[in-house]
């Protein structure tokens, strides 16, 4: 029977009851921010909050999907009902995307695993805006853990650290030297490092550089933020070597933050971040509408003065900021 025409609450009940097609449809509605999305989010928010949310991030080609696949395989053997959200980039030109991570996971995953591919749909930062809402749905539907695989990231795409309970950063040999490891950004936010392709030359150098970086966090006192030193695990994801060790380290991290109260803190922050991001997106839309000349007087005049060099952009922005709420 078709899901079309069913009310969101009915689809939600079916998804909670284990109907995967219903869950797939709910995710689409949330991802599109359809008119039903708010009702779905209300239903899910009450039920969610149990799943361990794990972020897997790292540069393109570092083996995130393959590692995720190996972990998911292991979770199947442990009898856990895991979900994977695999995020890939949307084309900035056409909005299209090729989502190719599923293929590395499906064959090894247990039939209980739910895998969903998502495109970033214009959002920078390594995830899509809809990710927290989709994680909430998977959580509400009883999947635990929920693994999020980000797009291949560089140095500053740190969305994942605000979204996950445990952030795993995957590194590989040949990515640069100790200076790269010491720069600010993504590496600071790792709860756990995986050095993948450990069978290749240079893997131990990567481990040493990461260790050195972590030593310096200790010297500067930065590690007081989390109170624990991230572990470094060596893996060869292609053969599955190191996957059990990775999973054990993820569990140790979860136990530790559950113990010291950080887990609750992170989850609270995550919800508040989402409120903030929603507000920002709303304001951004208002700004775009205002600059496109919709329904607020005096805007085009201010913009004209900027292009004629009689008003500085920063001054114009301060003047226009007062009009944002009018639209």
């Amino acid at each position, binding site marked *: 029977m078709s899901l079309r025409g069913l009310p969101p609450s009915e689809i939600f009940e079916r998804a909670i009851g284990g109907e995967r097609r219903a869950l797939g449809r709910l995710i689409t509605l949330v991802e*599109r921010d359809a008119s039903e999305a708010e009702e779905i989010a209300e239903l899910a928010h009450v039920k969610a909050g149990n799943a361990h949310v794990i972020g897997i991030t790292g540069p393109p080609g570092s083996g995130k999907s393959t590692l995720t696949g190996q972990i998911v395989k292991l979770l199947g053997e442990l009898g856990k009902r895991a979900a994977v959200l695999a995020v890939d980039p949307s084309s900035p030109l056409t909005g*299209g995307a090729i989502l190719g991570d599923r293929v590395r996971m499906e064959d090894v995953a247990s039939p209980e695993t739910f895998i969903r591919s998502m495109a970033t*749909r214009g*959002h920078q930062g390594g995830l899509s805006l809809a990710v927290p809402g989709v994680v909430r749905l998977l959580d509400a539907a009883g999947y635990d853990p929920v693994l999020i695989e980000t797009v291949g990231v560089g140095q500053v795409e740190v969305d994942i650290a605000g979204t996950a309970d445990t952030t795993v950063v995957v590194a590989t040999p040949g990515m640069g030297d100790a200076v790269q490891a010491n720069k600010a950004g993504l590496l600071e936010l790792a709860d756990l490092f995986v050095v993948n392709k450990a069978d290749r030359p240079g893997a131990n150098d990567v481990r040493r550089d990461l260790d050195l970086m972590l030593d310096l966090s200790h010297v500067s006192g930065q590690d007081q933020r989390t109170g624990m030193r991230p572990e470094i695990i060596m893996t060869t994801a292609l053969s599955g070597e190191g996957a059990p060790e990775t999973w054990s380290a993820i569990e140790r991290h979860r136990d530790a933050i559950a113990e010291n109260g950080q887990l609750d803190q992170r989850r609270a922050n995550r919800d508040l971040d989402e409120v903030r991001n929603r507000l920002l997106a709303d304001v951004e839309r208002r700004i775009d509408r205002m600059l496109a000349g919709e329904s607020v007087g005096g805007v085009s005049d201010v913009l004209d003065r900027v292009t004629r060099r009689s008003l500085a952009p920063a001054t114009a922005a301060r003047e226009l900021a007062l009009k944002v709420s009018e639209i």
Partner: protein
Amino acid sequence: MAEEQIGGQQLRVVLAKLGFDGHDRGIKIVARILRDAGMEVIYLGLRQSYKNVVNAVEQEDADAVGLSMHNASHMTLAPKMVDALAEAGLEVPVIVGGIVPDEDIPPLMEKGVAAILGPGASAEEVATTVRDAVAALQ
């Protein structure tokens, strides 16, 4: 542009090759064509089973399935794929691309294949065929 994507209703298309057909040049080109037409392609690639495709359509809430067939298996595998999706209660069009002799087209269409794209189909034709097949079911 980016702003339009948020909340946009991109079509989501699962692309796969069933069984032991290893010719994947064509499916890669189609994936690229659909991406450039603004669609989200869930790329399964080679050696897929009916079950894999059904799983993907369910979990990805796909709007259409594209099968690439180059080893004369279309008369057997394509109708079975149509049946497997119907059995799972999934109403999505199945579009076959590849080498399909003209005389095979009517029987395939009769068995529920939504459209067939042969060699020489233009990028525009590929994208339009997918859009039309999806629209026809809605």
